[in-house]
């Protein structure tokens, strides 16, 4: 089974990375480095593909962020749930697909399946091909936004289907959730769908994280920074 490198030495040295089918929840307050951390974990290494479901920024901004992180944009796709509401005429491409709004779970599900199918058919990366079966990293850059538009029970069922599909195709999923805006019931329900939780907090302007759910990896708080898609654990 394929193992996805996390780029975090504390994980990769102990477990080799994330097992295929792992779903990772990043619980983080606003203004933390959660987005950068999620993108660093989603950034495809050579041979891999990445798909971002963007519920809070435009596809162009996501692609820029991945470029800064050093990702090959030919292997990065975005399902954009923001742009279409202001630009209804915008057209899908193999790597950029648009849904009308974050409420449109039907559209999100279809575009997710279509993008995966495009990857499997080898029509994703301008004639370039990665490994086969394709290792796919998937990121939802905010479950919080989806929760603003849809009820928890509905979203739970939807994410249940999405995480199960990701397991079936042996991908890895990274999901960001703002832990200050939702109650404990919401957090614990979403956690049930995940294999691993990374909690993020800020203390004295320093980002800290603690990893839970990966055997052998310490659950202690660690200071970290993210620069150009590289996560560094600080002393």
């Amino acid at each position, binding site marked *: 089974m394929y193992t996805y490198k996390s780029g975090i030495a504390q994980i990769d040295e102990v477990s080799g990375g994330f097992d295929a089918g792992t779903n990772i929840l990043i619980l983080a307050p606003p203004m933390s480095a959660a987005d950068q951390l999620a993108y660093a974990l989603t950034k495809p290494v050579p041979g891999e593909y990445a798909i971002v479901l963007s519920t809070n920024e435009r596809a162009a901004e996501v692609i820029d962020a991945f470029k800064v992180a050093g990702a090959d944009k030919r292997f990065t796709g975005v399902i954009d749930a923001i742009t279409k509401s202001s630009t*209804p005429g915008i057209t899908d491409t193999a790597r950029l697909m648009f849904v009308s*709004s974050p409420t*449109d*779970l039907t559209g999100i599900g*279809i575009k997710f399946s279509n993008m995966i199918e495009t990857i*499997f058919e080898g029509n994703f990366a301008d004639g370039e091909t990665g490994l086969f079966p394709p290792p796919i990293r998937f990121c939802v850059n905010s479950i919080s936004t989806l929760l603003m538009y*849809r009820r928890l029970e509905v979203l739970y*069922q939807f994410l249940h289907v999405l995480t199960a599909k990701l397991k079936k195709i042996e991908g890895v999923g990274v999901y960001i959730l703002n832990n200050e805006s939702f109650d404990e019931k919401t957090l614990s329900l979403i956690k049930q769908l995940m294999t691993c939780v990374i909690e993020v907090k800020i203390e004295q302007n320093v980002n800290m994280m603690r990893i839970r759910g990966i055997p052998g990896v310490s659950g202690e708080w660690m200071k970290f920074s993210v620069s150009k898609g590289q996560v560094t654990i600080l002393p």
Partner: protein
Amino acid sequence: MISTGINGLDEMLGSGIPEGSRVLYSLEPGVDAQLFMISTLSCALAKKRSCLVVLPNTTVDAFRNDVQRMYGERPDLALAPVTFFDSVDWERIQKSSKSPEGRARELQARIRKLCREQDVDVIFVYFDLLNEEFGTDAATAIFTSVQEMEREKKITLIIEHLNLEGLQLLDHVIRDLKFDLVLAIRSSFRPFPQFNYFTLAHISWANLPSRSVPFIIGEGRVIPYIPRIVVTGPASSGKSTFVLNAADDGHSVDRKAQEGGMTTVALDFGWIRWKDFDITLYGTPGQERFDSLLPSYLGHAMGALLIIDATNADQLPRARLLVEMIARRRIPFAVAINKCDLPGTLDPGLIRRTLAIGDKIPIYQISATRKSDVNFVLESLVDSITQFRF
């Protein structure tokens, strides 16, 4: 009757959906099946029916644009006057009424007013947000009550819903909400990797068995699709003749055999568009030396047909071996006894006993040179495939 826009489906329904019906298109997450609703809408408009489209999750412009981009220009939809209730209208109601009950009342009044003003024949509803807001029963009642209030008009209600609750919701809709047609659109990984299919879960106006039909989206329409039927049998039993006679576009790989006559040296291939189904047939070579390949041919098949020569009893032991290989796959399967137009044919009962096949496996006496025989076998096999629970 209102056509679904999918000929194969209309035929199963008895030429379409009767006026005044309640219809649910239930979509499993991730299945690209929005074309079912669009096709039905397009057909209703082509027949000059007055249509109301309720889409609380998007604007009219975004909807029209999506339809055009995804499924090509649909002149009926582009040109015909359609009445819309879109996300802007829905937001207005959300702002004006504080309670869900108030919003439901206001929405119902608005729908009824639109139906009267526009003399609406068919209401198309994108249901997700309304289901979430009011619950399945109350959200459905908003529209069914309008149907009942305007009973003489026989308004048809067609709902598309992202079904996150699975069979439980379908049962409820059929049993308690009295829907007339429930079509569950799903995807599966077996027996063919990642194929989509629709299941006729319930029809109130006909006594039909539940059917599941695989489909693809192509040329801007839903195409019922059977990706692989394997035609196998002993050498010289008539497989290539069957495939070539069945196919609109077939390719035989027969070559002259050392022992005289012709023999298949690789796979025969046939593509058929039959009763709106796209079907591909794979005819295997009959010699034992190719048997190691047979499991992989059968691997993703949705059905199999064994052809045997009715005039050659020596083929039966070989045919029995092939029956055992097919039976392991647990797929719909039939036997065609070929060359029945020749003298000295074997008794079908003897063949059934020798091959040790049960009564449920159909045996057909045919001549593969007669297209009518070939079509009859295909029709029966497709019927078995659509009734099979994969």
